[in-house]
């Protein structure tokens, strides 16, 4: 059986192998061009411009659309052609050009053909000179990109509205604007055998643990991936080794949140092409914190946080507990309420568990449809789902009205903590089934297993549940409660102090 499955998987997939050895650049221009052409094939967007400068043949190679054409001409090609002091010796030509002719600051030398190709594909103009066994690459990138826009997934009332974009250089700029200190380090690591995606590891060198930074960089380097098209590709490699329902990594699209996390000693992982940064390590309680909490007055922020914790529990457990009570433990409901509920339930044809799972299933379909549709149609889908299907189902006697309240409440509460929507949705279904089969007893055992699972998570040496377990009184100042900035500002919290 397993052999059959393995064979089937082998048939449709291929193993991602380690990178091929790098080939040094030839000192023959035509050989270099032939190699590049054989690698790029018939790609129309790779441009080759061969010219003669002095007594040397040179060739510019660039990817059309990745470079700013005007800059290429003004900053690279024109100065080289019009330069009158070019040395006669071919070997010195390229060195002279890079040092004395081209004005741009972003320059790098490639000594292998693979590096040259990577630079071409990154939007640099690569210059080959006949008789020279290296190439110079000039940064004149200029590709179409989205401008910095409002945050969509983490909307704030009072805080900044800026969000990350797909361009990771813009993202770094957003960080640098907020932390104007040399301790903010941004290191590039490449990942993806084919995509060669640039991953930027950002941290504050005086706060982040060097072991954590190195661990993250090693994990990214060792990730066996062919293409990396989003930060989600890296998550399994960076997350806890042992399965946990709640991730030990956070995500944010907000540069202010990212800076606040780095200020506590965390590491930020920005993937080129993704407007969300990964935060590592991430505590469970941070899912309940937003930037607005720190802009609100402390008592209101504390109230909001308490509501979020309550919502989280309602989102996961309410439907399961409702099923358990209706099926096994009717004695806990007040008699008057029990009578009404019994009447409502008696007219529906299905058992409570089936009814609840069914309605939740429909809700998830409506939510998914609304999410993937264009915005205007998405709202219509939501209205049709909520009012038409819900109302009609109750009128037709397919579901009981109290159940609809339970489903509605658990659905809304799960959006209060948007970072945890995925585990909440899954666990809600799990506890519905458990509550229907094993009642309250099963729910408690299930919750215990969940708690142990959370307690066991120890990513990068920091327990997921800290500062709750292990308990740290000092860190509670910004957990369930949010103290005033007069108190918070006196001492900065450091993530590595929460170990054990």
């Amino acid at each position, binding site marked *: 059986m397993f052999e059959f499955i393995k064979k089937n998987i082998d048939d449709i997939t291929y193993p991602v192998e380690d990178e091929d050895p790098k080939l040094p650049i030839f000192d023959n221009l035509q050989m270099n061009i032939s190699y590049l052409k054989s690698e790029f094939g018939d790609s129309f967007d790779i441009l080759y411009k061969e010219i003669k400068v002095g007594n040397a043949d040179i060739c510019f190679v660039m990817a059309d659309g990745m470079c700013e054409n005007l800059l290429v001409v003004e900053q690279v090609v024109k100065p080289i052609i019009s330069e009158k002091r070019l040395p006669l010796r071919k070997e010195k030509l390229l060195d002279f050009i890079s040092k004395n002719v081209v004005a741009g600051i972003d320059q790098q030398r490639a000594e292998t053909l693979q590096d040259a190709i990577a630079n071409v594909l990154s939007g640099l103009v690569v210059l080959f000179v006949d008789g020279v066994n290296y190439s110079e690459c000039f940064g004149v990138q200029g590709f179409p990109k989205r401008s910095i826009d409002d945050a969509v997934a983490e909307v704030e009332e009072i805080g900044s509205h800026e969000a990350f974009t797909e361009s990771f250089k813009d993202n770094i700029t957003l960080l640098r604007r907020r932390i104007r200190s040399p301790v903010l380090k941004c290191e590039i690591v490449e990942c993806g055998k084919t995509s060669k995606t640039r991953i930027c590891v950002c941290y504050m060198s005086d706060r982040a643990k060097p072991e954590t930074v190195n661990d993250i960089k090693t994990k990214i380097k060792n990730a066996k991936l062919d293409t990396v098209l989003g930060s989600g590709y890296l998550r399994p490699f960076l997350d806890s080794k042992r399965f946990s329902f709640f991730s030990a990594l956070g995500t944010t699209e907000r540069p202010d949140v990212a800076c606040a996390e780095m200020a506590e000693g965390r590491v930020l992982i920005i993937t080129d092409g993704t407007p969300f940064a990964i935060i590592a390590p991430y505590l469970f309680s941070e899912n309940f914190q937003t930037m607005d909490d720190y802009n609100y007055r402390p008592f209101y922020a504390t109230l909001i946080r308490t509501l979020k914790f309550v919502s989280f529990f309602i989102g996961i457990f309410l439907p399961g507990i409702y099923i358990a009570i209706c099926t096994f*433990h009717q*004695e806990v409901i007040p008699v008057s309420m029990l009578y009404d509920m019994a009447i409502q339930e008696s007219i529906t044809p299905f058992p409570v568990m089936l009814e609840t799972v069914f309605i939740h299933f429909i809700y998830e379909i409506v939510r998914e449809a609304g999410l993937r549709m264009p915005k205007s149609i998405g709202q219509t889908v939501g209205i049709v789902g909520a009012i038409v299907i819900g109302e009609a189902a109750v009128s037709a006697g397919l579901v009981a009205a109290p159940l609809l309240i339970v489903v509605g409440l658990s659905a809304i509460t799960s959006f209060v903590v948007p970072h945890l929507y995925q585990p909440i949705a899954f666990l809600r279904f799990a506890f519905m089934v458990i509550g229907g089969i094993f009642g309250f007893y099963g729910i408690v055992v299930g919750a215990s297993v969940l*708690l142990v699972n959370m307690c066991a998570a120890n990513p990068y040496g920091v327990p997921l549940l800290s500062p709750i377990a*292990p308990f740290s009184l000092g860190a509670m100042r910004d957990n369930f409660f949010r103290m005033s900035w007069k108190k918070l500002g006196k001492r900065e919290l450091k993530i590595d102090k929460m170990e054990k």
Partner: protein
Amino acid sequence: MNTKSKISTWQLLSVLLVLRLLSTITFMPILDVAVGNSDYIIAMAIGGFSTFIFFIPTFLLLKNGKGLFEISDKVSKKLTKIIAILYALFFLIFIFSALVRMNLFVSAIVFPQKSTALFMVISIAATCYAASHGLEALGRTGTISLFLFIGSFIVILLSLIERVDINHLSPVFFYGISPVSIVIWSVIIRTVEPAALLVLLPKVSGKTLKSFALWIVSFTVITTLIFFFLMTTLGDASLLQLFPIHSMAVLSRFSVFERMDALLMGMWIFSAFVKVSFLMFLVADIISSNFKKVSLNGAIVFLGIINSLAVLIESNSLSSFKVTTSLTVRSSIFLAFVVIIPMILFLIDKFYSGAKE
């Protein structure tokens, strides 16, 4: 013993306090003696504080800072293996006892009309999963469960305040002092949790001596308080119930909630889960540390199977339950594993230290 993963004294004692409090809330008036209800409150207080005397060997070993197996290793590896087997069996008895009591609770209170075999097997599988996560995870779970336990009990006790009536209490020592002394003794011999502290001592970091004294005071105060509420709300009727604390929770009422026993039931199951998981880990750790061929997870799976079979076989009879609650059996176990063996090992350690000097 593998001492790589350490937990703080506070975490371990939290787990042990949960274990002790679970024994309190699963209290069953099965002693064959006539005792007035107020005598139970006195017995809880005196019994709790009397443990200070019986835990002298524990205090001495804690002061020394050496675990049982560390000391026995000085004599011979064989002795360590023998003591390891004895303590593994000792804790295994308490796993079985906890499971039998849990089974009784589920079959009598939670699902009176259903077979509980499936529930028990699933629960044991869940505890095996928890045990496989190791001491650190269990320690953290224990800390949270202690908070939840105390919080839940405060809610239950506060909702019972209007039902408290001092007139429910019987005259003190109405049946004489002798029956009360038996209850005191039963309180003492049921406090076996410190044996776990002695076994796990190399894995514990922090001040153990003061914390342990605080642990004794805490469990005595909490237990006495719970019994005070039990006896003043239910009176003599409490001694006629199968699970008196549960009956007390049934009486509690808060706002629209007619009864708060669901809260107690939740805490009961949660604490039992922590207890069985912790003891399961303890036994597996003792076996895997002293018998290198056995892996920790392998031992946990093996224990899970053994316990599942034992519970399934014994679920329809109360013979094992009777054995595990027998005063003679309990007294012997307590004296052997909590008093005599630790005392002997302490003396051995002293002797070896003296010889070295």
